[in-house]
């Protein structure tokens, strides 16, 4: 059996499917997608709500429909797929080691590798909620899979911690399935989800949103019986005397996502502590030549449409690398200035930029009437106005190549008041 591929894509979710399709379209002949679940599509399969694809397909699709379109595209190609297969190790020289019940242990090699492992949810342990340890505490995404795919209802009276999009979507979903959602509790003074989800998931069903509040105690012997929440001060410390008690049997956690980068770290690929993803160049190449990364494994996105766009860039670059075109040349480092939490990419090879380079980032607070500035030394390269900015909304700017060529080996992206 030939175990050598042009491009191996790790992960069969939206990122992996787009990367594989694009690598194939750009001339990579032997492309393989490795997926640990029993089907392609990733988390989209459990996101049965609509609102996907407005940018990419110009229509409003549900998660399974969005995934289904890419699965159909893959089927029309000679792209190989290994399901129920877990990658256990990748190396800097593109060896991919994986295991499955069907084929056992396998060692594969590739001209280029694309990392598309996505992310997983932060759990109760990660945020250290005090109290008892009864059954009934779920991450929102796990509950979503139980309800939407496996057909198990996870509870009847629910408190949701965190106002991330999955939490908001699950508030509505649980309500539609007959549960009573008592509260959505958010530590920050603002919601971390998209505004439209506050409207159509909470307001539509009269579910109260408690901003600047957190869970301070979970009570229950076998199953969750009660949850206590407190208001928090500006340093996010609970204020004594502000307790509110909820009689409930279920707590859903929507408290953030962590890129799943065990393979990346083991391969000694340089990581960014701000994103918890790999440091990438303009074409999504990591510090290991020929190993690319895209989607939520690099930085957590709000919209799958942007995951698709990013992954197509990664897939195209992987095909190019596998066919012998390696990128090089002088590097510009992208630094974060005021109000900016991180940028992707972190490095730009100017020679490898065609018309311009898209830079994605998030701000560290809610702001009105701001201007995004890109500077190099004392020179301002370009500026972009924004009426409204929030940490829950990923920002994108495009720096034209002509301006980038004027920059030194360092540019800074900052956000200031107008």
């Amino acid at each position, binding site marked *: 059996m030939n175990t050598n591929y042009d491009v191996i894509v790790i992960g069969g979710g939206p990122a992996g499917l787009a990367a594989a399709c694009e690598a194939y379209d750009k001339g990579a002949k032997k492309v393989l997608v490795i997926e640990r679940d029993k089907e392609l599509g990733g988390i989209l*399969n459990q996101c*049965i709500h609509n609102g996907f694809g407005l940018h990419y397909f110009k229509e409003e699709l*549900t998660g399974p*429909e969005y995934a289904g379109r890419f699965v159909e595209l893959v089927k029309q190609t000679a792209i190989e797929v290994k399901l129920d297969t877990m990658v256990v190790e990748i190396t800097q020289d593109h060896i991919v080691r994986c295991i499955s019940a069907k084929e056992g242990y396998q060692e594969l090699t590739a001209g280029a590798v694309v990392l598309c492992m996505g992310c997983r949810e932060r759990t109760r342990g990660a945020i250290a909620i005090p109290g008892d340890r009864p059954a009934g505490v779920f991450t929102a995404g796990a509950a979503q899979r139980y309800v939407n*795919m496996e057909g198990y209802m996870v509870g009847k009276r629910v408190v949701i911690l965190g106002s991330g999009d999955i939490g908001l979507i699950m508030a509505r979903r649980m309500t*539609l399935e007959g549960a009573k959602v008592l509260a959505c509790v958010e530590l920050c003074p603002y919601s971390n989800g998209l505004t439209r989800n506050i409207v*159509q998931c909470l307001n539509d069903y009269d579910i109260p949103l408690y901003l600047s509040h957190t869970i301070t105690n979970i009570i229950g012997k076998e199953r969750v019986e009660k949850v206590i929440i407190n208001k928090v001060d500006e340093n996010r410390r609970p204020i004594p005397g502000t307790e509110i008690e909820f009689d409930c049997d279920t707590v859903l956690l929507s408290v953030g996502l962590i890129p799943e980068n065990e393979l990346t770290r083991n391969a000694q690929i340089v990581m960014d502590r701000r994103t918890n993803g790999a440091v990438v160049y303009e074409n999504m190449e990591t510090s290991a030549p020929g190993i690319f990364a895209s989607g939520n494994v690099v930085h957590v996105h709000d919209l799958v449409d942007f995951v698709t766009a990013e992954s197509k860039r990664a897939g195209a670059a992987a095909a190019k690398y596998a066919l012998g075109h390696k990128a090089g040349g002088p590097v510009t480092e992208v630094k974060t200035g005021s109000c900016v939490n991180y940028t992707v990419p972190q490095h730009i090879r100017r020679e490898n930029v065609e018309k311009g380079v898209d830079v994605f980032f998030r701000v560290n607070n809610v702001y009105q009437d701001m201007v995004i500035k890109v500077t190099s030394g004392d020179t301002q390269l370009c500026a972009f106005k924004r009426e409204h900015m929030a940490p829950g909304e990923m920002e994108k700017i495009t720096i034209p190549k002509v301006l980038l060529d004027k920059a030194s080996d360092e540019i800074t992206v900052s956000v200031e008041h107008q």
Partner: protein
Amino acid sequence: MTNVICIVCPKGCHLSVDEENGYAVTGFGCERGREYGKKELVNPTRVITSTVKVKGGIHPRCPVKTSSDIPKGLIKDAMKLLNSVELEAPVHVGDVVVKDICGTGVDFIASRNM
């Protein structure tokens, strides 16, 4: 004047709708937002997504959605219609699962192949 947050796309434009002036909408970023603003006050509607039982599929549940938006007031009744449905694989995207929800002319359709 009523303030409405547009839910048509993730941008979430802040709309103002003037009820006394023929429901004139301001603050929209696109034509769909203008329509949404008016509709939200005159006859608010939503697309509903849920699941139904399925036999012989890769999972025990199949996702469904309404083929178009339905009045908000009918959401509960529409959900009840799904309780008794049990599909049998193979199911294809777009297959009608429940016809004519509460006389609206809108159907529940499958949203994946299974």
